[in-house]
C-alpha cells in the first residue's frame, strides 16, 4: 500500500495503517533520537512517547503530505520533554545550565559520528540533527528552536564544515 493511502487511513484512526506508516519512518526516528539523546534506552523511550503522541494527535495533521515534518516535530518535543524529566529527577538547578553545557554522552554505535557531533555545542548539535536526520530547512528549525533562520543557516554551515573536516 502506498504511503499516501496509509496516511489517509491513519488520519481516520486506522491503527494498523498507523503502525505500518510508523514502520516506514522508524529507523530515521530512532536515529534522530539516538544521536540527540546519546543512548539506546532514552532513544527508545522518546520514540515510544512519540508514537503515542502522534497517534493521539493524528486528527490534527492538516496536510497529509507533511507527515514527515509533523512526526519529527513531535519526536523533537518528546526528546526535549525526556531531557527535562531527567533534569528534574536529577535535581539539576537550572535548565539553562544544562542547555548550554557541552556535555554529550557519546553514542555506543557509530563512535566516529558521535565524536564529530560532540565537537559541537548542544544548540549546533540540535541544528545539525534537525537538518541532516529530520530533514528540516533552516526556517523550520528556526521556528522550532526559537532562533533566527539566518543564524540557523550560518550555524549549520559552520557545524557541517567542522564535522566534515573531522570525518574526512
Amino acid at each position, binding site marked *: 500500500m502506498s504511503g499516501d493511502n496509509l496516511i489517509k487511513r491513519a488520519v481516520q484512526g486506522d491503527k494498523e495503517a498507523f503502525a505500518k506508516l510508523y514502520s516506514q519512518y522508524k*529507523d530515521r526516528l530512532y536515529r534522530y533520537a539516538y544521536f540527540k539523546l546519546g543512548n539506546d534506552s532514552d532513544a527508545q523511550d522518546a520514540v515510544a512517547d512519540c*508514537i503515542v503522541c502522534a497517534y493521539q494527535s493524528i486528527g490534527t495533521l492538516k496536510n497529509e503530505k507533511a507527515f514527515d515534518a509533523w512526526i519529527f516535530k513531535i519526536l523533537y518535543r518528546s526528546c526535549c520533554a525526556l531531557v527535562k524529566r531527567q533534569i528534574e529527577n536529577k535535581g539539576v538547578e537550572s535548565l539553562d545550565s544544562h542547555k548550554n553545557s557541552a556535555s554529550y554522552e557519546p553514542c555506543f554505535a557509530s563512535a566516529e559520528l558521535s565524536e564529530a557531533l560532540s565537537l559541537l555545542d548542544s544548540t549546533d548539535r540540535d541544528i545539525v540533527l534537525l537538518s541532516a536526520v529530520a530533514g528540516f530547512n533552516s526556517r523550520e528549525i528556526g521556528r522550532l528552536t526559537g532562533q*533566527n533562520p539566518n543564524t540557523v543557516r550560518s550555524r549549520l554551515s559552520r557545524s557541517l564544515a567542522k564535522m566534515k573536516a573531522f570525518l574526512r
Partner: protein
Amino acid sequence: MKNDLDFIKDKFENSGVKAPYSLGEGFALDAIKDIEPVCEMKNPGGRLKKITAVAASVAVAVSVLTIAIILFNSNNSAVKTEETAQTTAPDDNTVSRTYDAKTMLYHYNSYKDICMTMKELNDDYNSYYEGEDSNSADEIVAGSSGGSSSGSGNGGSDYEAFSKTYRQEENVDEGDIVKTDGKNIYCADNSGTYGTIKVFVPNSNKEISINIRKSIKESINDTTTINYLAVSELYAGDGRLIVICDVYFVPDVMNDKEVETSAVYAVVYDVSDINNITAVDMMGQSGDFTASRMIGSKLYVVSNYSHDEYTDFSNENNLIPRSGKKGELKKLTANKIYSFSKAQNCDMTVISAFDTKYEEKDIDTHAVIGTANIVYCSEKNIYLTDCNYSRLNSENRYTNIVKISLKDNLEFVAGGTVGGTVENQYWMDERNGYLRVVSLDLDVKAEHTKLTVLDENMKNVGSVGKIAKGEECKAVRFLDDTAYIITYRNTDPLFAVSLKNPKKPKLLGAVEISGFSSMIVPVGKNKVLGIGYSESRDGTVENKLKLVLFDVSDPMKPKVADTKKINKYSNVMDQPRSLVYNPERGDYIIPLESSGEETQNGGMLNFKIENGKIKIIRQYTNNDPTLRCVYIGDKIYLIPDPDRSTFQLDSVEYK
C-alpha cells in the same frame, strides 16, 4: 563534489544506527491499542494545545473589525485613490481590498481582510509544497554572495584614520558584527544564549561587555522571559552605538508553550563615556531580522514576520505585526499593511524608519504580505523584493520589487516585476532614476542570467537575457554605465554589459578563468577585482581564496591581468562586508582562516593593486580564525570568531 550537508546526511544514513527489533511495527500497534485519536493535539508533557473555538474566533473577528474601522477612519492616508487606477481583486469575492496599480500592492482597511488574505496564501503554500523536499529551499539562499562597494574614512581631527564597513552605496551605511568609531572596537558575541557586545578599548587595553538583554528587559518592563537573544548588526559613530538584535520570548518546548514571539530590537547606547555606557533609546518590531541600513541618523530595519501551519489564522493577534519605541510594541493599523499583488507566501515583511538621534520622534512602520529576502537601498529609495526561493524548480519564476521613498516618512511609491529571482543586494543598482536588476531565470531546464532596467515608475524599459546559459550567477557589480557579471559552472566568465542606453542594454564581451569570484570590487578606472573561490587541477572548487584582477579597459574584450591564490579561506568569500578598503593608502585588508585541511588558524592579508598587478604587502598568521579586521591609525586589529576562540583581540603593525 558533495556539499557538506549531503556528506553529513550520508554519514548518518550509513551509520548503521537503526531502530531495534523491539521498536518494530508490532510495538507501535501494542502502544496504541488502548488509545484513540483526539481532536486536540496532545503534547509530550501532557498539556493539550488549545484550538480556538469557532464562536470565540468569530467574536474576536467582529470586534477587531470594529476596532480596525475606527483606526482606519482616524488615520486614513495610505491608499492613493486619485493618481492610480484601482481595481478590485478580480479573482477574489471574499476579501475586501484595493489594488494600487502604481505600487502593484493591495491595500487594506481591516484586520479581518488581512487575516483572510494570509490564510488563503497559507493554504495555497501548503498545497503547492505537498511532498516537496523541505531541505531544498534554504540552502540556495545560503550559497551565493555578490559584489561589494567600498567605504573607509577619517574619523575627524580628534581621531586617527579608521576603517568603516564596506558599503554598496557610498552614503548608505551597512550594519556589521564588528564596528569601530576610531576609539573603540565593538564586536557582537553570540557564543552564548544571550548575545552581548564586547567593547575593546585599544588605547587602554580595556574590555567592556554590554548586557543587551538587561537593557531590553528594563525597557519593556515585562515579566516575559527572554529565551534567546542574538546580535545581528551594529552601527557606531557620533558617540553612539546601535545594536540590532533578534529577541525570542518563547517558545519553550520544555514547558509546552508553543506560541512563539520574536521581535527585532534596535537599542541605542551613548558610548561617549566608555566607563558609563547607557541605553538612551530603543525601538522594536515583530519578526526575524532581515536587513538594515543607515543614512545619517536614520536607521531602516527590515524583518520577516513568518507563520506556519500551527498559526491560528482566525486570530489577528497572531498575524498583525507590532512596532514601537521603548519596548511598547503596538499593532500596526490596517492601512499600513499591504500585500504584494502575487505574494508567494503568508509571511510579512516589516519595515521601520527610526531616527536614532531624536528620542522624541516616533518610528514609522509599514508591512507587506510576502517575503522580502533581499533589500537594496540607495540614498533616496529602499527596494524590497518578493522572490520565493522554494519555487526554484518552477519555470515561471518572477520577483516583485517595491520601491519605498525615504524622503520624509516611508512612502511606497512604485512597484515592478522582473523575471527570475534576485539573490543578492548587489544584483540591484539605482542610477539616474533607473533601477538596474540582475536576475537568475530558468528557461526549460537551463539557468541563465538576465538584466532588466526599470524606470522611476518601475516599468520595464529594457532588458538583455540569456547571459551565460546553464551557468549560475555568482557576483554582480554595477559601475556607472556598465554591469559586470560573474557566473560559474564550468568556467568563471566575467561578462560586461553596457547600460549607456538604459532602454537597450547590450552584452559587450566576456573572459573566462577557473574558479569563481563571489564579489567584484572596482579598482581604479579600467580594472575590477574578483574575490572568490579557487579551483583545483581536477576542476573542483576549493575552499581557498583567489584574487583575480580583470583589465576592462576594452569592455568588448575583458582580460585577466593577474591572479593570486592564497592557501586559506577568508570570510570575505561569503561576506562582502569583511573587506576593508583604506582610501588613503589605496590598499585592502581581508581576514583569513585555515581552509579546513590544516590545524585551525587565522590571520589577515594586506594587499594593493599596483601597476596592473596584485601586490601582497603582508600576510600574517595567528591562532584563531579571524572573522573581521579593522584598522585604527597604524594598527590592524584582528577580530576572531567568538564561537571558536577565547575572543581576544590580536593586532599587527599597519606597515
